[in-house]
């Protein structure tokens, strides 16, 4: 008996479904808007998914499988953070043909696929095994790097964390961009960025100001530069990497449409995007539990 595997007793054979034309997603409590998991309705659908993606993983589950319910939230969280992999979920009770086609005799069973070919298969509701197998899949898909290049690419992302001289910025910043308390908050924050006790300025307000900004203004680049400097703080870049990504997108698109000669605006815009490449070393639950994750950032940026 494999640890953690919920084997279906012989007295409860998997019953063929009455219809396989539409397989509704299982009833999970998480928001469907965030659901990136694929639910193939047929063997053909399944094959289309795994051949259209370089890397994919399939989770074969069933309604009566207790261990499956334990690992489901982790699987769902991974599907949100590992967007380079297609996540598939098959309820073999509802989709008998798919379970049969893949030789599923117990749940949970997981399979990974690389370029449409099966890469690994394992059974059991083991979070570490799931994490490790996904890491191995990504590793296998990675092109082999020659030694010198490997040395360079093992380094950290290149960032531009320097804060601008606030006195100069405040004297040259276009008028009426920021409400005074907001500007004061930004100035205090950028002046003491290394101090994690200093509150982050209200980020949703800041994002809104950036989205409304008229980039025709003289010294508009300074407004982008303030955000660029703030982004070197992980609380700020973390928020913009998730909740504020549309604002970054807006800035890039607006600056892209501007005259190429406005090189200062271009420099700070290019530098603005860099901190999004941060790899945050944070607690697993903080990353993978979106319910926890958002309030914590909201508190930090309040």
């Amino acid at each position, binding site marked *: 008996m494999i640890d953690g595997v919920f084997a279906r007793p012989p007295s409860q054979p998997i019953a063929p479904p009455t219809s396989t034309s539409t397989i509704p997603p299982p009833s999970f409590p998480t928001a469907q808007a965030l659901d990136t998991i694929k639910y193939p309705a047929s063997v053909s659908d399944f094959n289309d998914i795994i051949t259209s993606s370089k890397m994919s993983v399939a989770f074969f589950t069933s309604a009566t499988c207790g261990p499956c319910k334990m690992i489901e939230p982790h699987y769902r969280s991974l599907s949100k953070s590992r967007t*380079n992999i297609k996540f598939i979920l098959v309820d073999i009770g509802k989709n008998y043909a798919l379970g049969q086609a893949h030789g599923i005799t117990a749940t949970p069973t997981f399979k990974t696929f690389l370029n449409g070919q099966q890469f690994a298969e394992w059974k059991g509701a083991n979070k570490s095994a799931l994490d490790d197998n996904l890491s191995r899949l990504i590793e296998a898909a990675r*092109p082999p790097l*020659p030694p010198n290049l490997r040395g360079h*690419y093992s380094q950290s992302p*290149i960032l531009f964390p320097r804060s601008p001289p606030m006195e100069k910025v405040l004297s040259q910043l276009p008028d009426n961009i920021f409400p005074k308390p907001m500007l004061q908050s930004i100035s205090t924050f950028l002046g003491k960025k290394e101090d994690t006790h200093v509150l982050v300025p209200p980020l949703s307000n800041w994002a809104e100001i950036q989205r409304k900004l008229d980039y025709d203004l003289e010294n508009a680049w300074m407004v982008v530069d303030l955000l660029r400097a703030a982004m070197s703080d992980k609380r700020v870049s973390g928020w913009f990497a998730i909740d504020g990504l549309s604002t970054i997108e807006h800035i890039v698109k607006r600056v892209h449409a501007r005259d190429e000669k406005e*090189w200062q605006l271009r*420099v700070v*815009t290019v*530098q603005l995007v860099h901190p999004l490449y941060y790899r945050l070393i944070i607690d*697993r639950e903080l990353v993978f539990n979106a319910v926890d994750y958002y309030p914590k950032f909201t508190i930090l940026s309040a």
Partner: protein
Amino acid sequence: MFSTPLTTIPSLQSFLPEMVELLNSAVLATKSPKLIKAVAAAFFNIARLSLEESVAPDEDEIISIVVALVESLKNMRVNETEKKDPELERLLVVCLGGFILLGRDSEGTKEILGGVEAIDVLKGIEGALAGEVIGLIEGL
């Protein structure tokens, strides 16, 4: 403890084309070392994240980046009057190597590397790194 990238190439996809165009036009049009360094750093970060996640940007983006990087290296060698910046040159070669690997399955990338005479440009650069990237092109 566990580490994961908050931003992934798919999540940047919504504005990656504009970002790449912004970077390409900047690196081709400017002589500002500050802007070229910022652009090269952005290319490095994109390549690094793509390699780490084993997911490549679209072929068109890879091709345009490869062209911009090779042209930028050419410009650095042509402008003899300007002060040499070996570190920036090395970074551009690292970026070029990264995007060649990411585009290794693309016929378009192979063709464009021949068209822009990438090997000739790299032969003019000293060091093992440029040799390694030449090896990658020859191995395509």
